[in-house]
């Protein structure tokens, strides 16, 4: 009985370590204003899926995202094969971000490539937002974006559906 329990615990710990490893590879994200000096992100993800079910929740898929920087140069190279983000329930948010820089200081360069990207939010008062190669709050940046198929779907009363591809200082959702 003890041996069986130990085996289950061991498998659980192994699973958690594996999940953490996958998350570290898949989510190349720096946020919270703690980034100082030059920032360089090179992220390549084959397939990424985020699903949130329930009221007032958020499903977010981030690849190559920088939020807040104390200056310096910001370089982001983000490549994604397939990204799917789904949020189901009232007042929820589905957001897919590939190659996004927010509140960065110095020169910014973003190269983003996406094969298939799907963002879906279903429920009242919800938001589906797809960002690829986006620089927020700053227009002094070089952005190169290549996308294959991008689908943004939102269903329900009082909803917002926004796609920003290769934009600087422009956001249709805010």
């Amino acid at each position, binding site marked *: 009985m003890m041996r069986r329990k130990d085996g289950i615990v061991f498998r659980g710990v192994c699973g958690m370590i594996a999940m953490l490893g996958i998350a570290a590879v898949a989510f190349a994200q720096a946020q919270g204003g703690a980034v100082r000096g030059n920032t360089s992100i090179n992220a390549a993800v084959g397939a990424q899926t985020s699903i949130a079910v329930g009221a007032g929740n958020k499903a977010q898929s981030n690849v190559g995202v920088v939020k807040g920087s104390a200056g310096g140069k910001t370089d982001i190279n983000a490549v994604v094969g397939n990204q799917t983000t789904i949020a189901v329930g009232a007042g929820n948010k589905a957001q897919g971000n590939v190659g996004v820089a927010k509140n960065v200081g110095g020169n910014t360069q973003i190269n983003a490539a996406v094969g*298939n990207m*799907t963002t*879906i939010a279903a429920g009242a008062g919800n938001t*589906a937002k*797809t960002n690829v*190669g986006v620089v927020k709050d*700053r*227009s*002094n*940046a*070089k*952005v*190169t*974006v*290549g*996308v*294959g*198929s*991008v*689908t*943004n*779907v*939102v*269903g329900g*009363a*009082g*909803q*917002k*559906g*926004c*796609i*920003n*591809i*290769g*934009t*600087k*200082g*422009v*956001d*249709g*959702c805010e």
Partner: protein
Amino acid sequence: MKYRKTGLVAFVLGAALSMPALALNEGTHLQPRGQSKVNKALAKGYLQSGAESMQKQQTQVNIGSKRAGTCTMNVGATQGGKDSKETIVTAKEIINVCK
């Protein structure tokens, strides 16, 4: 045995016939009703701007909501800045649906 072979042939034929429809919806992840809306918007685009123009900009479909919500698509948009650097965007298919 003969009936089994006939059943197999019918199955293969059915699968082959359904392939074009599957290929049409491939990549959009939309149900037939949603796909129908996209096709209508595409047809409207072809009618208004001509086939050549539509081919140049590839596929960009934005279907707004009938309700109070917003449906926004920004591709290669820049807010007027003093020293804005270049933006390059290549896109095959971009679909935004709010319903």
